[in-house]
């Protein structure tokens, strides 16, 4: 069946992020001046203050994260807010081992408030959705 959810359109400064994701790797933008990784990737560091916002590079992330918060969309009703999505599904903000938080889905069978705990350990998995794009998602370790 054709994939009919919204598909990301890579931009110049996010090409590497999406190319690496397609290869099964999670890469982050890193500011040499702040000594910190950040999400989402932009060429120029967004921290304020930052001594040299243009001194940034790509780094490979470990793929380890913890669950920061989540919601179960369509819990018990199966109603999704947009065509293509099958409810229930779990939206989440996860805290990556490198520090930044990122939005994602938690891949888990029968999601419920009982089998999702804030702070639980997660690892990245990649869902191929088109020939060019794989979405980084997270599953419980």
């Amino acid at each position, binding site marked *: 069946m054709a994939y009919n959810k919204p598909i990301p*359109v*890579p931009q110049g400064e996010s090409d590497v992020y999406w190319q690496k994701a397609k290869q099964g790797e999670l890469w982050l933008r890193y500011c040499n001046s702040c000594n910190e990784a950040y999400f989402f990737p932009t060429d120029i560091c967004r921290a304020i203050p930052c001594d040299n916002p243009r001194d940034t590079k790509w780094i490979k992330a470990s793929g380890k994260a913890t669950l920061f918060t*989540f*919601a179960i*969309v369509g819990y*018990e009703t199966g109603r999704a*807010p947009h065509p293509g999505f099958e409810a229930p599904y779990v*939206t989440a903000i996860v805290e990556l081992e490198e520090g930044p938080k990122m939005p994602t889905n938690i891949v888990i069978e029968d999601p419920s408030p009982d089998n999702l705990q804030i702070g639980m350990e997660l690892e990245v998995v990649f869902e191929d959705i088109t020939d060019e794009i794989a979405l980084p998602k997270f599953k419980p370790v």
Partner: protein
Amino acid sequence: MTDLRKTAAIVGVDESDEIGKVPDKSNLQHHAEAAHNALADAGLSLKDVNGLFTAGTSTLGLGEYLGVKPSFVDTTAVGGSSFIIHIAHAIAAIDAGYCDVALVTHGEAGRSMRSRAGANPSDADPQYQIPYGFIGQPVAYSMAARRYMHIYGEDKTRQGMAEIAVATRKWALKHPKSYMKDEMSFDDYHDSRWISWPFHLLDCCLVTDAGGAFVITSAERAKDTAKKPVWILGAAEGQTHGMISQMPDLTVTNAANSGPKAMQMAGITHSDVDLAMIYDSFTYTVMATLESLGFCGPGEAADFVANQRTAPGGDFAMNTNGGGLSHTHSGMYGMFLVLEAVRQLRGECGDRQIKDHNIALVNGTGGSLSSTGTTVLAAD
């Protein structure tokens, strides 16, 4: 900063002719009806208007539709808070002499015309959130609420959310234009279906068709308007992020910035506030906002609203029109916070009129808990 306290007043307010479910009217019709009604309320007309403010559409099309040729325009659009933020901009523009009659309008057929502008693919949201089903504000706000529950306790948070939903419905039943007409019990709240856990249906605002408008003019011109002016004592604004996943602290909104600034400008403290109009896109929005504004401390909102304290007869008058939860919510609800505050301060609210009505604090939240505007209004 220039002291703009009481340099301008709100002199007219009204809704569009019908609100709720209005299948045959466009957004601009709601704008136009509300504009004419609010100007009539002020004893003014479109020929007096030289400042035009709106959100969600350009003043180009709006001005053309209304037939006005304003000399000052502002389409600041940062979600449902925008119209509160327009107040801050309008008093500055009036003080600077750019305009002296500012018309602020809103119109949205949120229920009947669900077409929304497509996202720009180069923005972050369509790359990093939307593909994961971060679609619609219940998803974003429920994640923030889940974090709050983790910090302050799930049962206690739930209790606070239920108190707000039930109390707000009681107010709605006292407003003839409210969309919701039936009583709500605590059981009704807890039994309502899940939208995006931890949000029940009854944690979420309505989706209605509605327009609203208000008119701001200088202190000088306010002497001659049809009704007593409602003075603008303070107004401030700000934003912290766009996407919910970039929110610095999911339990604190920018009301922690715009609230104290507006209150300082107004020269008031929390105990001076007779009416709090707090954007209730969701029950949780109210809890986070009460804390961010400093009405109570972090994690104390559930205790603050306990025992139906914000319901009719309670000692903290809040959202007396019935809120976005039970009165109306067309998409960008902030407009209706202002309408109710002005009417309460004028003493026009009949059954739901609060006893002391000298000072109202209005706080709007927009986007994904992203932006806020706070204004402090005073009766003449």
